[in-house]
């Protein structure tokens, strides 16, 4: 098993290094970009998009805080793209990739059981996914600790009730303070974002590996896996667009993949964090940390088990 893990690690290292660099670099830059816009300015911008709040996994009131804005970075398409690239590329290589390349037969000509071969790939994929999620978190940590944010202290003013007027009590200019971003952001609050990215990686990796176990062409396994992800995203968009389609959220893994929501519940309502469900706004029920992780990892492991069973039973086709 050690020899197989070493072999697959060697095979995967280039993709991993590229993905890792992309993930880390993106998170450093993305968190830095938050500092370019102060919270007050961001609040001004976001209030024009009030109609789109339903598309946001967290209330806008959370989104305008530095913690909320940093949490948003974990749900960026680039982060998703990097994790999908890694998990789909490794997952589809497990069986279909090796059959497609013709290297499976040479490998299984040795005393290597199919179970070991399969789960060695699982280990490499899973450890890689965890490291990528960790790199995303580390990128954020580095950026949070190396950047400062501007805090604007306005002169005292009074607001007149029922009128959009604010009368300054002084003619002094607003004071701008530069404070470390870490004063506003506790990096440990983002551990749920790390773990839910990892859990999502397990799910997508499991799905891609299962398809790979059934198929003999890698390109087809990649196509099916990518198509599945797009379909799932479409379901999510449809579900949140209209209340009558809300039930569709139960059929998409993008529902439990909710890094912003989990960071929000940890910071705003930690008591609900370790529960399966949490009560959201207006008494709505939504998945909490335990629910999100259990669903993503549970279905991912189930896919891996089905794939293992299929691979161990199937005929090994001759190289194409």
């Amino acid at each position, binding site marked *: 098993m050690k*020899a*197989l893990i*070493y*072999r697959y690690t*060697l*095979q995967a290292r280039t993709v991993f290094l590229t993905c890792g660099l992309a993930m880390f670099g993106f998170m450093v830059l993305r968190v830095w970009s938050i500092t370019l816009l102060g919270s007050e300015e961001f609040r001004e911008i976001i209030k024009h998009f009030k109609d789109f709040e339903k598309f946001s996994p967290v209330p806008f009131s959370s989104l305008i805080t530095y913690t909320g804005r940093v949490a948003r970075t974990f749900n960026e398409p680039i982060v998703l793209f990097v994790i999908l690239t890694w998990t789909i590329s490794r997952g589809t290589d497990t069986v279909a990739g090796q059959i497609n*390349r*013709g*290297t499976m*037969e*040479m*490998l*299984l*000509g*040795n*005393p*290597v*059981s199919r179970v070991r071969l399969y789960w060695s790939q699982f280990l490499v994929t899973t450890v890689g996914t965890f490291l990528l999620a960790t790199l995303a978190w580390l990128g954020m940590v580095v950026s949070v600790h190396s950047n400062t944010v501007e805090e604007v202290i306005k002169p005292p003013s009074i607001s007149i009730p029922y009128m959009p007027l604010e009368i300054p009590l002084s003619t002094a200019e607003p004071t701008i303070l530069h404070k470390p971003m870490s004063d506003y952001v506790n990096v440990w609050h983002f551990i749920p974002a790390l773990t839910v990215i990892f859990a999502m990686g397990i799910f997508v990796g499991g799905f891609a590996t299962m398809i790979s176990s059934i198929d003999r062409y890698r390109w087809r396994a990649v196509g099916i896996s990518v198509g599945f992800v797009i379909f799932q995203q479409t379901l999510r968009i449809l579900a949140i667009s209209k209340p009558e389609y809300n039930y569709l959220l139960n059929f998409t893994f993008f529902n439990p993949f909710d890094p912003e929501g989990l960071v929000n519940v940890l910071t705003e309502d930690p008591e609900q964090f370790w529960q399966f469900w949490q009560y959201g706004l207006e008494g709505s029920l939504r998945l909490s940390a335990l629910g999100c992780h259990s669903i993503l990892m549970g279905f991912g492991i189930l896919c891996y088990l089905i794939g293992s069973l299929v691979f161990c*039973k199937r*005929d*090994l086709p*001759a*190289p194409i």
Partner: protein
Amino acid sequence: MSFVETDQLSKRFGSFSALKNCSLQIGQGTIFGLLGPNGAGKSTLIRLLMGFMTPTSGRALINDLDCHQQSLAVRNITSYLPGDARLDRQYRGKKLLQLFTALRPDGNMQHALEIADFLELDISRKVGAMSTGMRQKLAVTITLANDAPLIIMDEPTANLDPTVRQQILGLLRRKREEGKTILFSSHILEEVESISDTVGFLRHGELITTADLTTLRSQHRLTGCLPQPLPAIPDSLTNHLQLLEQTGERVTLEIKGHLLESLEWLKESHLSDIVIEPTRLRSLYEQIHPDRRELQS
């Protein structure tokens, strides 16, 4: 004692029968050559022995281990070279040898380096930069770099020049001398004939016959001219002499064992323009595959 044994082994893919009721035995310490045209079922038989596929019916045993149920144990005592051996292209030859020897408890890197050196293989090159022949040599090196008692090779000399072919056949002979059992398939009759103890002929998924090459080497084929039909072969010679063909004046006979007794009777039969040559595997192949006389190396 049979080291490899199949009993009514069959494999179907939908309505297509790739292998039909194949029963054969291969003795320990012998070389078995598997012959047959493309699609005859050679690779299917080999892949069933390796446990890569589930047989539709029948069973295969290697050293009394069921090839399907105990595939891992079987592969522990078997070294295998696929018909279309493909290797990971991103590694250098040496690295790949290390990776493969590490997969086997009996893998021997030192032995691998010796074989690579014997085959004049440049293992410092990346596999992707190797020619087809070099990659085949590397695959052969990987296969022979261990101490497995059974070696199964599906067309090991494909894509190789005659010199390297001879080197590989030499390596196989050496392995037999060490007591290893070897099963290999090939299209090249001469190389099968030169090293095999037994050959098996497959056609359309059926094992037509097996032949002991030691016996075959003591057989001769005689062709001559005879204007009238050949007289009946006397009972005393029927075990040694067999009429294969008489077309017009041309007669073809097969002589088994000593030539002398048969020749005396043939002399009395007024046969002229006699040509005697040792029976070769080719003539046996042509009997089994009359439509493939042109299939020669």
